């Protein structure tokens, strides 16, 4: 049978339901016989509830974070205008935020990129 010490180390994950079947039944067996460890389980249930509540109450990651991630990760291009690209390779691309304000625009002339505008701070807030 598990000692009190072994049992108490496992109690958080027992309460969390994250022990394997063997460890879980070893804890359960110990608890039947040990009032002290059973009290620890009750206290841990209380602590877990408060802690989950407190962490959950923290404000979430703002929605705008996705815009920054997609811009950095995929260089998200939300609007693109092809102006006779088959003739002279002229292409105007604009990177927009979801609210529609331009962040960056550049012109591709014969494969060369010409920046027209860049308002977006790299990775920063816009």
């Amino acid at each position: 049978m598990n000692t009190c010490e072994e049992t108490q180390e496992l109690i958080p994950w027992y309460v969390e339901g994250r022990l394997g079947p063997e460890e879980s039944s070893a804890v359960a067996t110990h608890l039947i016989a040990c009032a002290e460890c059973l009290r620890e389980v009750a206290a841990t249930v209380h602590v877990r509830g408060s802690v989950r509540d407190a962490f959950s109450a923290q404000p979430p990651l703002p929605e705008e974070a996705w815009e920054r991630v997609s811009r950095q990760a995929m260089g998200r291009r939300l609007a693109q205008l092809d102006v006779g690209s088959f003739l002279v390779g002229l292409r105007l691309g604009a990177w927009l935020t979801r609210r529609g304000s331009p962040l960056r625009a550049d012109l591709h002339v014969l494969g060369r990129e010409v920046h027209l505008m860049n308002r977006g701070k790299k990775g920063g807030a816009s």
Partner: protein
Amino acid sequence: MRTERRTDGGEGDERTERALLVRTAEGDESAFRLLYDRLADRVFRYAFTLLHDRHLAEEVAQETMVIVWKQAATFEGRSKVSTWVFGIARFRALDLLRKEKRGDRVPELDLVEPDPAPAVESRERTLRAIGTLPEEQREVVFLTFYEGRSYGEIAGILGIPEGTVKSRMYYARRSLAEALT
């Protein structure tokens, strides 16, 4: 909208996340968006637990997700997808922490508006209690009770032995139980 889902889900969640990561590695942007929705907020909360600074935590969450996009193909499948992602976030957060460290930072955790409602009062008390734990204990508490992770997975994220995870949790739980009763 984030629902109160068990954050570290079972095998079904892991299968889904692996499939999304494979498609992300192939450049599938909609798969990446789904992966982002499953992980980014959790990564943010984890980073906040380590850094006590919302802006830095945002930065870490964003950086981590960009790395996931770029490095998706390098995932070797030796751990859960979320364990891999949390490991990246932890590395970035601790790196920032080293750079930002200027004396003892005041935890942002207790900069909560005072509110007389009993539920809020007890929440503040809990946040203060969590805030006084050493960082190494705090993250184990977060990963266990918010993320619902096993001690084995936590050992994987932190790169420490399972026994160390258990003992950190043991002391954290003692302090919290004392502060909250």
